[in-house]
């Protein structure tokens, strides 16, 4: 640039190339990953992403962003960097750790995607991990006493189950019965998707160490309860409040797992011959009262729609994280969508498959991209989730397989 004129700035389209995840496990000493490290789960995901996309040279990866809510021990030490090194990526590939609690992986995607659009990266790997068995929720947390002395948040704001109970208070017509019915449908839709082979191809096998039993191999999700019934759900205890509404049956469990995806500038994906699973349209993050964090996806979706010029009617598929059934119902209720609308979580959701906190965002995206491939009649899809301390996160995607309106 010899003269004083400014270099022009332009944005690029960003595409979701491919996503994979480990099978999800139940947290705790009997879980399939009880003796498996969190970083090893991420390593397995990164290596499999590269193996499944052999036309992507490893040195073309410009960033590795990995989310974890608890960033200590095997989830600490800047896990994006450690996992990249452990996965055998060239040392020239940088990495970082990212945290927005449950929306960690989703934020890893929006942040690196923005970097791609801006021209700072060509290709990025984004994902998340949570080993809730090794890192119980809130491990090492030290909330500032001002939160309480100044009543900045209600005491219940830090207990996610209590925030879900609070949502039932705010929306009394969202009853436990509706929540249980939604939960049952989630289990059933998940089981059907597995039987149809719709869930499965995105899973990477993980060797699991057990000092007691010897090596095993995780190939399927551990949390689902295919024998769930409405009668059974009705008998479950409400651990967050006596005679409350939130149960282990209508909420996601405590889980271990990791996810990851490849993002690229569309022109780079074409250059390298990478598949295009989805095209990023836009996203929104919005804060809400921490006591009712579950309502977060409502304003974040409103914002994402407003910024992309779309309306809720334009969205043909919804992948909503089911932290709690009531929180998804609040979203559907707001947008006038039926509890059993077939566009919503067609392959079930976190109530069945599990919710290893910071990893879940990329699970939603991976499933949406696979649904896009099956549904050329759908143009837009939406992934959204609620976030602890009162936030919502929404990402809108376009289906590259869309065949047009006529």
């Amino acid at each position, binding site marked *: 640039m010899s003269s004083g004129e400014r270099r022009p700035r332009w944005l690029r389209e960003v595409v979701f190339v491919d996503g994979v995840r480990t099978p999800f496990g139940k947290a705790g000493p009997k879980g399939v990953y009880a003796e498996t490290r969190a970083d090893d789960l991420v*390593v*397995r995901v990164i*290596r*499999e992403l590269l193996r499944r996309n052999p036309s992507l040279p490893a040195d073309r990866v410009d960033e590795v962003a990995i989310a974890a809510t608890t960033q200590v021990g095997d989830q600490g030490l800047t896990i994006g960097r450690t996992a990249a090194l*452990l*996965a*055998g990526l060239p040392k020239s590939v940088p990495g970082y750790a990212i945290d927005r609690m449950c929306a960690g992986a989703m934020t890893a995607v929006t942040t690196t995607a923005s970097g791609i659009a801006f021209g700072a990266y060509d290709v990025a790997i984004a994902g998340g991990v949570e080993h809730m068995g090794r890192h119980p929720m809130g491990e090492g947390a030290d909330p500032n006493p001002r939160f309480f002395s100044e009543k900045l948040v209600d005491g219940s704001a830090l207990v996610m189950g209590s925030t879900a109970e609070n949502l039932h208070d705010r929306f009394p017509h969202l009853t436990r019965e509706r929540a249980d019915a939604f939960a049952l449908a989630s289990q059933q839709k998940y089981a059907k998707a597995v039987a149809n082979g719709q869930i499965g191809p995105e899973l*990477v*096998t*993980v*060797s699991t*160490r057990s*000092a*007691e*039993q*010897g*090596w*095993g*191999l995780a*190939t*399927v999700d551990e949390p689902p309860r295919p024998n769930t019934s409405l009668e059974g759900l009705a008998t479950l205890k409400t651990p967050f409040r006596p005679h409350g509404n939130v149960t282990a049956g209508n909420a996601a469990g405590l889980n271990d797992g990791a996810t990851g995806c490849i993002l690229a500038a569309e022109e780079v994906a074409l250059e390298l011959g990478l598949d295009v699973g989805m095209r990023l349209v836009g996203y929104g993050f919005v804060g809400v009262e921490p006591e009712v964090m579950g309502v977060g996806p409502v304003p974040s979706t409103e914002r994402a729609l407003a910024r992309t010029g779309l309306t809720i009617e334009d969205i043909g598929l919804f992948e909503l994280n089911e932290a709690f059934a009531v929180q998804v119902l609040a979203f559907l209720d707001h947008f006038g969508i039926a509890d059993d609308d077939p566009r919503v979580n067609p392959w079930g959701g976190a109530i069945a498959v599990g919710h290893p906190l910071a990893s879940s965002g990329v699970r939603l995206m991976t499933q949406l991209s696979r649904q896009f491939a099956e549904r050329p009649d759908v143009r837009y899809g939406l992934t959204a989730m609620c976030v602890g301390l009162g936030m919502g996160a929404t990402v809108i995607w376009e289906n590259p397989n869309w065949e047009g309106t006529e």
Partner: protein
Amino acid sequence: MSATFEDEVVTAAKVRYLRVPGLAGEIALITLDNGHDHTRPSTFGRGGLASLDAALDEIAAHTPAPAAIAVTGKPFVFAVGADLSGVPSITSAADAREIAETGHRVFRRLKDSTVPTFAFVNGAALGGGLELALHCHHRTIATTAVVAFPEAFLGLVPGWGGTQLLPNLIGIDPAVTVIVENALAQNKVTPGPKAAELGIADALFEPADFLERSLEWAVGVLNGDVAVSRPEVDRTAWDDAIARARAIVAGRTRNASPGALRTVDLLDLARDGVDGEAFTAGTAAEDDALADLLMSDELRASLYAFDLVTKRAKRPAGAPDRKLARKVTKVGVVGAGLMASQLALLFVRRLEVPVVLTDIDQARVDKGVAYVHGELDKLAVRGRLSADKLNRLKGLVTGALDKAAFADADLVIEAVFEEMSVKQQVFAEVEAVVSPECVLATNTSALSVSEMASKLEHPERVVGLHFFNPVAVLPLLEVVRAEQTDDAALATAFAVGKALRKSCVLVADAPAFVVNRLLTRFLGEVTAAVEQGTPIAAADRALDPLGLPMTPFELLTLVGPPVALHVAERMHEAFPDRFAVGEGLRRMVELGKSSVYSEPGVVNADLAGIDSGDSPLTEEQVRERAVEALAQEIRLMLDEGVVQAVQDIDLCMILGAGWPFWLGGISAYLDRAGVSEKVTGSRFLPKGVASLPA
């Protein structure tokens, strides 16, 4: 099945039935795990074999029958072979044969299995561990794994199928390399990628997802999607390869190790293949060999020696509490000659602290520093040092004329001319500039350390650190405690020795310490025999049946006649009745000859007449005289308290002189040949310690 070995750490075979994507049936995966971390690798004793046998029973009874059986190890380790700690409990040939046969029977189940079998070699697979893997129909290996057959090195044979299976998998010549050549080259291991290249494994995967990729590969093999190709074994290669093996064994052991000889015999037998009857015959021959060797004194001596170098060498007997050691943050080296420069190189590489060389003129100092820098450059060229590390180490090595450069050193070692007055003066000059805690060390090979320290203000800081040439290679360090040496100085010396990655042995301040004293005595007997009229070549051959790494006169050349003469004179002063100074040796030094031979097998003409005495000895008489002298000298050293125990003498001879395992250093040989009892009235070690039990 007999009871387990006493105290056997049993390697359990844990079975799980795995569903693997793409495969209709299940894979029965056996994990070998002894319940300890990788610092205690899994081994097979009676209990471990029984566990594997039971696991295979369980799998055979399992319904539905699995599509495959696979074996892998605990993290970082596959299995490292037979549990040698159990060998002392084998007290009869029948016992020994039973162990051999049991291993064969259990492992053969994997070979004969109608269900396809796989070994996933995730980490070290040595000896019996590798044999287990070789019995499987297919193998994968991790890039970080290593394989080896240490048996010939230990005086055994790879007798759980290894001698038969390996040559019939990869061909006889590479098998000779792995089983004989590598074993006898200080037990060299074969890394995973090389093992895959040789065909020991069919597929190579990185450790990050080794088990997942191995299982996926196995599914490919089972479904017929992955073809496993193995080259045809060339049966015409056998004669040449066996001849090569025999030459290696002769060169390395002088055919004195029965284990190495039997190993080659078994490899020869493997030419008949490993199908059905041929394998039965081959394994029966292995049973015979194991039964004989396990009940041999040579093997028991080897295991004793192995135990010394793996255990005693790491925990030196008599060393003071390591907490007393002072930190060494800078080292001074007095002298800049070849020995001093080699020491400086070793110190800077291992301690990575400033090292200052001094000498009497600038030219010598510059030459010394240049030598160290040059050696560091060579290491960098060979890829052993990174560019940054090279810069760092070169920057740490400096030279000075003034000993004031030692002022802040924590350790100063001298390697100046072997003359008491010179050394005393050097120490006095150093003491004038260093702190009272600075440890002063001498690399003398034969002078009295106590006398060297006697004129100092702080004699308690003086120790002997006796290295062996070549300093970078030989693992032994004799740490000499002088009369006034205190525990702190001694502990510092041991800490430094350990940091230098040497095996330290505590020795008293006795003339020539251990290795030089015994070698000088031994050499003195051989040269005396020559002067008596025994032909040089005959005398030089006389010790061959022991299988020492070199003949007496080869040793003389390695040590260097001037050094040998210096030590011999010093020993003669100390013990005139036992140590003579040979006329021939004097003449060699006068003439500047480094060898008694002008060319191999031809005695140097300048030494003509040296063996013109009139009472020549037979080779057997020379040998008898030399080993009897050793027994006498060792007994005297033990009586004098030169070392804590005879084990330390053996350790010194193994690590400092390269004397072989099958002699147990030397004491096991002197005991089993009856020499110690004949010369000193008793054995050095009770029966069963380095020999078969009574």
